[in-house]
């Protein structure tokens, strides 16, 4: 069975709309290229770097150190990081520790609902490779199995300073990234 050719419509309005679509597509490619040039990209990345909004999701015990990092002494807000209630307006997941099989499904659902660009920090040994609980029957050994991870923060649990370092590393990554990421 041969592949069917798309039927060319005779309707002049449809023809016009088709060609318009092509031109809009080409135009947006040009706009994307212009925005991705050095000065404009720097401004947009600068804005993204310093307004990271993590989702309110805690997976396990590293949440205690995330709490301490958000608190008075370490104060993550000075890096522009403040947990936010709505995941649609958030752009960062900090996976705080062990990911159980039950939580992994929810984490993936949350990641899929977030708007692009979105970033993932895997905090703690459990989120990196299973850590202390690597031989447990109910956990996923590492966040990389179902999410693209940007920064790994090792430790069990990582100190708040380590989390701050991870966030600075993520900001450095955003600084040199493209405005329109592939995923």
């Amino acid at each position, binding site marked *: 069975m041969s592949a069917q050719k798309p039927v060319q419509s005779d309707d002049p309005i449809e023809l016009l709309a088709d060609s318009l679509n092509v031109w809009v597509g080409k135009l947006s490619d040009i706009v994307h290229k212009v925005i991705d040039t050095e000065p404009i990209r720097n401004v947009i990345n600068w804005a993204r770097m310093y307004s990271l909004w993590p989702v309110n999701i805690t997976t*396990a015990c590293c949440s205690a150190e995330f709490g301490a990092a958000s608190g008075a002494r370490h104060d993550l807000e000075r890096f522009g990081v403040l947990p936010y209630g709505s995941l649609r307006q958030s752009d960062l997941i900090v996976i705080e520790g062990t990911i*159980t099989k039950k939580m992994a499904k929810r984490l993936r659902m949350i990641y899929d609902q977030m708007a692009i660009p979105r970033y993932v920090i895997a905090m703690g040994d459990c989120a990196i490779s299973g850590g202390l*609980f690597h031989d447990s029957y109910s956990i996923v050994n590492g966040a990389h199995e179902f999410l693209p991870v940007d920064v790994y923060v090792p430790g069990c649990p990582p100190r708040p300073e380590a989390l701050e370092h991870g966030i600075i590393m993520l900001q450095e990554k955003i600084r040199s990234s493209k405005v329109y990421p592939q995923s």
Partner: protein
Amino acid sequence: MTTTDKPTQENTLGSPSPDEPGAQTLTLSVGPQHSGSGHMRLIVELDGDIILNAQPDPGYVHRGIEKIIELRNIIRSIPVIERPSIIDASNLNHAWVRAIEELQGVEPPARGQYLRCLLNEMNRIMSHLYWLSIYGVFLGHTTMFMWPLGDRELFIDLAESLTGARITYSYLVPGGVRRDLPQGFAEEAIKRTEYFEKRLDEYENIFFKNPLFTSRAKGVGVLSRQKAIELGTTGPTLRGSGVDADLRKDEPYAAYGELDFKVHTRPDGDSYSRVMVHVDEMRESSQLIRQILKKLPSGPVRRKAPIVVPRGEAYGRVESARGECSFYMIGEGGDKPYRARYITGSYRNMAAISAVLEGVRLADMPTSWWSIDYWPVEADR
């Protein structure tokens, strides 16, 4: 046809009639992605904004710790034991070593017992402060989030100088504790606890007397004395309902028999009582820290104990920050237990969530259920 006389089946467009059961209620799923849920989900049934029924959905952090304990030797198990309640690590650790020591028949030296109590009380304050800071967030009181977390760092520094770790100490081992007090610890600890008690007075002014808090906590989420006992709650939840139950007094372990302290209770059983029990306990604990440092006997801190779980059964329980934490252990003579049952305070208080939330407004839900001090990681284990 006019619709003035009575609504017919057609003009309701297939929706159930308002008189049917279930037609007026709304079922909400709160969590796990929610600022007021933590690592769990609450399935809440609402009538208007009154909660008719709330069911917790735990298990998001179930890591099979009871099984992991069977695979590690008793020393390597200690970090695993601590993880369920990482902000209250030393109390959970204490239940573990008590069960092992009961089987081994090892009695730690007196100084070791006192140092255990010292870290336990510091941990109780840290755990309550962390809980209080989250309580502040749930009320939208950002100052009450920042202050307790800032003051918690005072004790974290102390614990770090004592054990080498910020929150996961692994300090208590069978036979005693890992190391002795560092130089200058006692003076620093006394200074910090005295400062902390002054801070608690400031908390009183900014938060505990604040109508923002009292109007949403007094008379809200009442758990009666009878109900609290029936549901088997423990810890501050039980004492907030007027029951004088504290393992440190009822079954003195470690050095608690020689220490002088009060068990704080409040009679009302509402959110406010449970919060104030926590606050009173923080004062009592900081008083206890000073008392322990004053009474601290000299001598070794650790006695040699074999890495062996002798054949037999043992039950070790302690009063952790969230209530009674216990280990039931069966030994076979190897370096691992044959079976260990691990029950924590949050696990037992989970039953109170439904009872507390019934009849509460949806807006008061986070503050009511968080007043139970339910730490999902600890309950799921």
